[in-house]
């Protein structure tokens, strides 16, 4: 009897183990106590765009994107009608994912799931170089475009892209003369390059900011004097000198100075521990206070040694202000979520890298009216941002950004610490060495000494060269040699200049932009460039209902993020 009982129990246990092992994976381990009726999945989004050869439009602006319509008014004019005013229009339109392809090529290479291999590897554009050969895993070779519309007197006949993930390996190649330039000089190689007369360094201006944030809804950060004391009590230059790569600078404004209207108004407080302590005492904390210092252990260009920087700020707060900050390391996702929602009750270390080089991409994303990140927002700041954001010409908007920057300095929603730089290295005889703040070096504007071939080495192989649907910087740089947008960024800078368009002029509130196209431009396949190519390109990127809305990843991240896909 007892034995059969035992047998039965062991059988039950064994069966349940087998069931558990082979059961469906989806079995929830922690079922909710009450069954929540599951909502039906949202209906799949459908395209709302209408397209014909000369026009792409949506019936209304409810879908949340930027474009109302893109119309080829004649063969050489395209009119962009926006749903909301956008002062950053030119900065965005110049970005390489929005480069213009020939209409016939878009249609011919569409493929079914992804672009055809022709479409992914040999883009047809209007740039100074054309793709000649892509040896996967080895190199991409470009040859000069004989019909290029612009002037490129320095360009070598052949341009070669190679790659290596190790900065030491790139350095060795440059020293041995097998390449003409490489990107991302390793921290230990700066001194070597500066000491070597056969090499030269090109410092890349920073296009990011690292700041110490605080949420002003938590005491004692609700007191502006406390915030000002912290702003004065941190020696920013010391942090930059000790921990940031060469080419970095202590921040005097939130926005880096390479961006138009970024550095206007009064510069940030100079470091003054005595004045800071006096302010703290005035605010009722003569003996300092205890708080927390949050960060995520993730390396970014603006914050390469995050734990050391955190410890230095901790030490500075204690020494200069008697603020006792306990360091708390958070998981990256949780940190971004908590800081973004303004739920961190102490100081935190975070930064921002530019999506597109416009002051709105820095200020509006942090100090706009509905941003919760630093707690309560201030009309002194956001009113100026709203006004400035409607003006397309940088010089006209300057007064608003002066006022906004001064208000930021006065109200201290956060403390900007540094703009982190990086560098490219070249052989000394390379003329016009480039290190673009946007990492969009165009090598047609550089000359490799007396050689007729320019060899560039970057960190990684391009993923594909269909850059309308890529986000990776190494891919975008390769495309920039071949493809052009209506506008482009100046060499080694962020200001925009006309490229395929001769001009794009806004109306008074920057909601309608009329672009007059350059005439006589030929694509690499010999076809002529005109307004229908522009409309076809944007139809490909923005209209999910189009049969040509086929890319590599099919996420169309930059089209979606900067303009908004036309569906709902």
């Amino acid at each position, binding site marked *: 009897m007892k034995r059969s009982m035992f047998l039965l129990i062991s059988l039950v246990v064994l069966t349940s183990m087998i069931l558990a092992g082979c059961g469906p994976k989806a079995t929830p381990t922690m079922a909710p106590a009450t069954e929540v009726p599951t909502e039906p999945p949202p209906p799949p989004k459908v395209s709302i765009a209408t397209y014909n050869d000369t026009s792409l439009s949506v019936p209304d602006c409810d879908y949340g994107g930027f474009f109302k319509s893109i119309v080829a008014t004649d063969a050489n004019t395209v009119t962009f009608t926006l749903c909301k005013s956008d002062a950053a229009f030119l900065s965005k339109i110049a970005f390489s994912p929005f480069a213009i392809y020939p209409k016939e090529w878009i249609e011919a290479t569409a493929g079914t799931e992804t672009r055809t291999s022709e479409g992914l590897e040999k883009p047809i554009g209007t740039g100074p170089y054309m793709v000649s050969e892509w040896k996967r895993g080895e190199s991409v070779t470009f040859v000069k475009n004989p019909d290029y519309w612009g002037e490129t007197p320095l360009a070598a006949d052949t341009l070669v892209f190679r790659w290596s993930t190790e900065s030491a390996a790139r350095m060795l190649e440059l020293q041995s003369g097998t390449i003409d330039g490489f990107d991302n000089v390793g921290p230990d190689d700066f001194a070597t390059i500066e000491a070597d007369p056969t090499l030269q360094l090109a410092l890349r201006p920073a296009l990011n900011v690292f700041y110490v944030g605080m949420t002003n809804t938590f005491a004692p950060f609700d007191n502006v004097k406390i915030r000002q004391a912290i702003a004065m009590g941190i020696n920013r230059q010391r942090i930059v000198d000790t921990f940031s790569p060469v080419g970095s600078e202590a921040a005097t404004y939130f926005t880096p100075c390479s961006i138009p209207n970024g550095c206007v108004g009064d510069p940030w407080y100079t470091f003054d521990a005595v004045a800071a302590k006096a302010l703290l005492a005035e605010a009722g904390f003569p003996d300092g206070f205890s708080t927390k210092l949050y960060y995520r252990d993730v390396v970014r260009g603006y914050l390469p040694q995050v734990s*050391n920087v955190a*410890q230095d700020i901790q030490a500075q707060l204690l020494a200069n202000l008697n603020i006792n900050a306990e*360091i708390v390391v958070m998981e990256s996702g949780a940190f971004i979520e908590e800081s973004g929602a303004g739920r961190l009750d102490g100081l935190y270390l975070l930064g921002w890298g530019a999506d597109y080089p416009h002051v709105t991409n820095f200020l509006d994303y942090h100090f706009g009216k509905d941003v919760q990140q630093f707690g309560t927002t201030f009309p002194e700041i956001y009113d100026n941002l709203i006004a400035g954001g409607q003006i397309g010409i940088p010089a006209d908007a300057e007064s608003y950004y002066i006022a906004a920057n001064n208000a930021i300095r006065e109200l201290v929603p956060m403390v900007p610490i540094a703009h982190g730089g990086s560098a490219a290295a070249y052989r000394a005889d390379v003329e016009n060495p480039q290190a673009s703040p946007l990492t969009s070096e165009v090598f047609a504007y550089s000359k490799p000494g007396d050689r007729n071939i320019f060899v560039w080495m970057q960190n990684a192989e391009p993923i594909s060269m269909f850059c309308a649907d890529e986000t990776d910087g190494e891919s975008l740089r390769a495309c920039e040699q071949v493809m052009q947008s209506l506008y482009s960024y100046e060499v080694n800078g962020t200001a925009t200049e006309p490229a395929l368009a001769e001009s794009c002029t806004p109306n008074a509130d920057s909601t309608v932009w009329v672009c007059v196209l350059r005439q006589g431009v030929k694509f690499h396949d010999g076809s002529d460039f005109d307004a229908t190519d522009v409309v076809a390109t944007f139809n490909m990127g923005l209209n999910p209902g189009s049969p040509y809305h086929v890319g590599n990843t099919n996420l169309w991240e930059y089209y979606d993020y900067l303009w908004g896909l036309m569906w709902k």
Partner: protein
Amino acid sequence: MNDITEKIAELDAEGLSLKSVSLWQITWRRLFRRKSAVVGMVILGILAFIALTAQWIAPYDPIQVLIGVEQVKMRQDPCIHLLGCPQDQPQHIMGIDGNVRDEFSRLLYGTRLSLMIGLSTVTSSIFIGTILGALSGYFGHWVDNTIMRVMDVLLAFPSLLLAIVIVTVLGPGLINALIAISIVSIPAYARVVRASVLSVREMDYVSATRAQGGNTFQILFKRILPNALTPLIVQGTLGIATAILDAAALSFLGLGAQPPMPEWGSMLGSERNQVFTAPHLVFYPGLAIMLIVLSFNLLGDGLRDALDPRLAHASG
């Protein structure tokens, strides 16, 4: 005269003496005869000395940032004047760490932290483990069953993983790490004590006390426990090494000592990516952890041999 002294010494070597010698005296003598144990004790003695005198022998404050104080660079190599480092440079015999602090001073203060961590966790877990083990062994039946099954559950988890879980629940920090390590090392002591109590419980002198009307408390704490102490001492000494290692591991993972505390594990952890560019910042804290753990292990092994009556005649 000499002959007699030698004779006595020989007899001592056998653990038998003409004079009455206490267990502890015998143990000490046996311990000193084991070279490895002596090495362990010497290292430990030096470390204890460093820990006690850290504030006088350390050249710098362990959390003082030297930016602006001296002309030193982040992660600078060691500079020792005796080994040819120029006299006009400040001496940093273990170099400068990633936050421009003197590595040597941090290491010295770290000794204090590590010894405190080892002793405090082991003391608290021995205390709790002894009570649980004694109760379990003495009362038996359901008390024994309940306590030992709970201990079995604790033992079923790898100790470091369990400690990580506990720290995650309590929140990172040195005190919480100590609590976690104490908790995970309780079962080992509880088992040792229970086993000893079980064997001592049936001894004649315990029965005698019971017959004389001694109460439970007297029997347990005056008769049984002192005689069950020997294995606990060995286990405790070895346990200190494990506790220090676990605490260093937790700090390495960022769950234990928080910056700027000069804890060896966290010093090692924060510079682990610099192993090729600044090896001194990884080498010295690692060496220090190795030394302290080695010294406790050597001492523990020596104690085990010295205290084990079966090995008494083999020792020497």
